[in-house]
């Protein structure tokens, strides 16, 4: 049975059938050692890919492969149409007003850097303030530090509270008349904290600031509507949402994108070139210099079809249930301390924790022998580690194919880790 999609996009909604979903992901049948099945809990780093995405990638290379926007021959026309159709799918997925506002990049990091170079370097001046937060991924910190050193802008941080949420009272003082840009994550990759954009965006808008959202963790896991959020830029990556590596998205409001200079110069981004000067192509071509990652963009379109068919509300609800279960289950494991909000309504499917007496690296190594894949380290969020006063954490992160059985395996394996290292510091 299928259910009509409430957004009326013509997509047929499928019921959330976990067993059927898991059959779509061949890698979930893998064994890490004989008799040790994979339990993949590193989804905040990258997601696994369903057969539909893998098939679309090979179908493109098998049947359509050609360069886009150039030839008049059939394959080039087909490739161009498929590439542009993928762009339209991305636009609809985040409810962008215009398909042309979707720019294909390599990843979230490149999308954030594109704005730092092509928008901020042109429109921000010495003394202007860029506001970020203490829970950002390094990719939403380093570009602004570089801009500060190059342009003399002032970089300000909204601090984190001990429970892993942002200090909104402090934000009300930090965001002010000098704020020209608020660049903020919608969900912490280290703690899973869902950021209160409904509070922060209006604060920035009231000051006339531009708002960019790092959606690397939110777009794969939560329904995201850029118009409802009232934001100006959104950056995210395909590979964390069932798509291939090497494709990222920058969405921006057309007026802002139009006013920006190109990021890279070269083929495909020009209107005319003579020996003296060139004129720029229209958005989005202006920001897509050179042959783009055509095949992966098209395969990303298949990933969006997959998510659309399930519906992001259903994806979020499944992950909320798994996270709620995992929070309770892990809290019962002796020696485990969980960082970040303990309410599954306030966090995505990311749980950072420590195990008393065992370094995260050792936890990860022992769990691997049980087939359980988690991430250990600073998660490219060293300011968060500093605030928590830990060198590193262990992190389990979930996606639409994870089960409560897998959470049980994680919990049981953690008890084995404690037994193994018992007596250590």
């Amino acid at each position, binding site marked *: 049975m299928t259910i009509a999609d409430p957004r009326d996009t013509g997509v047929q909604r499928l019921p959330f059938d976990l067993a059927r979903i898991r059959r779509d992901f061949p890698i979930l049948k893998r064994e890490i050692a004989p008799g040790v099945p994979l339990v993949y809990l590193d989804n905040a780093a990258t997601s696994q890919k369903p057969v539909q995405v893998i098939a679309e990638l090979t179908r493109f290379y098998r049947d359509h492969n050609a360069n886009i926007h150039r030839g008049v021959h059939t394959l080039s026309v087909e490739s161009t149409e498929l590439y542009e159709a993928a762009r339209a799918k991305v636009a609809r997925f985040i409810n962008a007003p215009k398909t042309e506002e979707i720019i294909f990049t390599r990843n979230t990091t490149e999308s954030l850097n594109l704005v730092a170079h092509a928008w901020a370097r042109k429109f921000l001046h010495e003394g202007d303030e860029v506001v970020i937060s203490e829970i950002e991924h390094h990719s939403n910190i380093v570009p602004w530090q570089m801009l500060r050193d190059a342009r003399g802008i002032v970089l300000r941080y909204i601090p984190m509270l001990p429970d892993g949420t942002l200090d909104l009272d402090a934000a009300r003082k930090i965001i002010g008349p000098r704020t020209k840009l608020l660049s903020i994550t919608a969900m912490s990759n280290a703690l899973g904290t869902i950021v209160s954009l409904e509070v922060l965006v209006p604060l920035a808008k009231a000051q006339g600031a531009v708002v960019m959202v790092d959606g690397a963790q939110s777009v794969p896991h939560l329904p995201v509507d850029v118009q409802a959020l009232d934001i100006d830029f959104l950056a995210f990556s395909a590979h964390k949402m069932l798509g291939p590596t090497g494709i990222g998205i920058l969405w921006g409001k057309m007026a802002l994108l139009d006013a920006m200079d190109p990021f890279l110069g070269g083929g495909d981004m020009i209107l005319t070139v003579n020996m003296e000067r060139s004129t720029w192509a229209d958005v989005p071509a202006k920001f897509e210099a050179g042959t783009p990652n055509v095949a992966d963009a098209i395969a990303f379109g298949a990933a969006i079809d997959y998510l659309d068919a399930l519906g992001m509300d259903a994806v979020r609800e499944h992950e909320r249930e798994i996270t709620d279960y995992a929070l309770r289950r892990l809290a019962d494991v002796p020696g485990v301390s969980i960082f970040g909000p303990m309410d599954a309504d306030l966090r995505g499917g990311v749980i950072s924790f420590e195990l008393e007496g065992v370094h995260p690296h050792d936890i990860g190594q*022992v769990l691997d022998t049980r087939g359980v894949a988690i991430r*250990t380290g600073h998660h490219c969020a060293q300011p968060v*580690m500093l605030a928590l006063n830990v060198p590193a954490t262990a992190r389990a992160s979930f996606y639409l194919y994870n089960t409560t059985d897998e959470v049980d395996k994680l919990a049981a394996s953690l008890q084995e880790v404690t037994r193994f*290292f018992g007596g250590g510091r």
Partner: protein
Amino acid sequence: MEDLYREIILDHYRQPRNRHAIESPSCSADGSNPLCGDQVTVAVVVDGDRITEIGFSGQGCSISQASASMMTEYVRGRTVAEARAGVDAFQQMMTTGTVAGLEGFDDIDALVGVAKFPARVKCASLAWKTLEQALNEGGAPVTTPVTTDERNSNG
């Protein structure tokens, strides 16, 4: 897994040898692996050409801390030249996966299994690289950052 976490390694992790401060060291160095958060400080007293005292402090995974403990056991009482040869032999063991055969201290051979886990070699090597750095300071009591993290070094 038992290849990596041999009982003797866990013993050094749980009961580290020479984990103490040195009053007036001849030289010392700090080492860290920023990506995994391993951290080791090594301080030695050199009398003539002999290392008469050595101590370490730090925090990190079992491999990094056990290796530091073993390193200090090996080095104490040896000449500086012997200690340097030990550093080379240890690095050789990490590269080739064959036991170093360091004379007079078999415990270290238990770390040979680490060579099969490329992600952990930098953990095991940290204390030894830090010792080498301390000795390179030529007796001056200075502290220089060392890293065995491939993403943060030129090696």
